[in-house]
């Protein structure tokens, strides 16, 4: 493969909240079609990193490029255009509870891509089938669904507008192990069908090894290890080792004291 422009390139990303440094120089490249999973403990800044990329937060310094185009500090209108390339599955699914399931899935199509409602509904049902839901959930309200079903609707919404880059924020958190595996399978399948690039954050190693091509470990605001998913359990890095094996003892000490 020739040297391609990375789909997503982060350079020297910094973000602090008051005296608390959350991101301290994050560098990361995600190549087209690649699936990168960022692992790390709670509160290490994984979500902050995603929010910076999505434009929900502004980094203090550093650069974020999407398809080679700088997106830090662009106007709201430009941001809408760039976000068109993005799909996002939120941790709590973040479905709009005022709208029925199908309108949730079709939201980006109707509001963003100005598709007629009838056509958008058909497309939404097609996506619901793709994530293993039946047509009859389309008219239910999101609150009538179980957590696993909400996640699937969230996934259907994330892929509905056929985004080029999909972000997953803890896709399996709060699900039972079987449902978690179903979601992992769906993620792998949907991403393959779309040929999309993905960036996920998780602390669930089962999920990470299933969906990742490459794994990066975030600790104290930096990516301390990046490597192929196959090597994550044999990395030789003691921080990564401690994390993936879930040991309380090791170089990473949980800050219990505030």
């Amino acid at each position, binding site marked *: 493969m020739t040297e391609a422009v990375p789909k997503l390139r982060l350079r020297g990303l910094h973000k602090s909240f008051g005296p608390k440094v959350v991101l301290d120089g994050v560098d990361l490249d995600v190549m087209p079609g690649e699936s990168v999973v960022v692992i790390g403990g709670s509160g290490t800044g994984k979500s902050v990193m995603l*929010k910076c990329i*999505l*434009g*929900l937060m502004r980094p203090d310094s550093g650069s974020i490029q999407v398809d080679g185009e700088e997106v830090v500090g662009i106007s*709201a209108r430009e*941001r*809408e*255009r760039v*976000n*068109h390339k*993005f*799909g*996002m599955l*939120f*941790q*709590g699914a*973040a*479905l*709009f*509870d*005022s709208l029925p399931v199908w309108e949730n899935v079709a*939201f*980006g199509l109707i*509001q*963003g891509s100005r598709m007629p409602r009838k056509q958008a509904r058909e497309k939404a049902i097609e996506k619901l089938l793709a994530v293993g839901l039946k047509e009859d959930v389309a008219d239910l309200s999101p609150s009538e669904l179980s957590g696993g079903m909400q996640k699937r609707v969230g996934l259907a*919404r994330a892929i509905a*507008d056929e985004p080029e880059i999909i*972000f997953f924020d803890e896709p399996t958190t709060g699900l039972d192990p079987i449902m978690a595996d179903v979601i992992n399978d769906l993620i792998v399948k949907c991403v393959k069908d779309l040929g999309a690039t993905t960036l996920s954050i998780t602390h669930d190693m089962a999920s990470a090894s299933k969906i990742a091509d490459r794994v990066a470990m975030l600790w104290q605001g930096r990516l301390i290890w990046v490597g192929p998913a196959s090597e994550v359990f044999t990395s030789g890095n003691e921080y990564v080792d401690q994390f993936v094996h879930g040991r309380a003892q090791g170089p990473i000490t949980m800050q219990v004291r505030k």
Partner: protein
Amino acid sequence: MMINGILTFLSVIGRYFLSFLRHTGRLAEFTAISVFHVFRPPFYFRTLGRQMVEIGYFSLPVVGLTAIFSGMVLALQSHTGFARFSAEGAVATIVVLSMTRELGPVLAGLMVAGRVGASMAAEIGTMRVTEQIDALTTLSTNPFKYLVAPRLLAGTLMLPVLVLIADVIGVFGGYLIGTYKLGFNPANYIARTWEFLEPMDVISGLVKASVFGFLITLMGCYNGYQSRGGAQGVGQATRNAVVSASILILVFNYLITELFFSR
């Protein structure tokens, strides 16, 4: 010791002042962005329609009940007062002037602040803490355009309609008491109602209503939008929305009255 005490005292004042400035600045920015998006396409007519029905139609029972009892009590009280210097004939005029100029807009505004402002703050606050507002952004939809602008517009447009209805119902309440309890001749009472009523009385009330509608929805949206940290944050946002909208209504009521005074 003494100096330390003074310094602590001053720093507390300073902190409150800075926090006041910060909030004022944030609110001013929020207002500017929201108003900007009211006038800039794309427009979400479906959301606008839903909000207009929610604010205008579903507030009718509350506002109507408030208005009729206010009109009734006005007739009774002014009769008591004016009877003391044999000016009972002024009851109809007093009822219609008080309703259109003051009580219609203020009472309707306060009731709608409790009903609509609270539910807006709770809804938008919940959307904030469950990341639904973030989700809007990732779906290339500007939350100001989709959530805030239609609500502001609906509030500003619908409150005058509500107040106009409240005026009529309030005057009718006064008429009921006037004719059935105080013994006025119905035709006479209606004639006295119209006799001294000027267009400006009604118009100033409707201008007030429009401003109140804007303030109520602005406070609902702003407090909801800024809410942080789960159920407690949403609860705080709801409380702040109602309290701040109510106080602003009373403050602006005075300011607008001052503006229209003697006209």
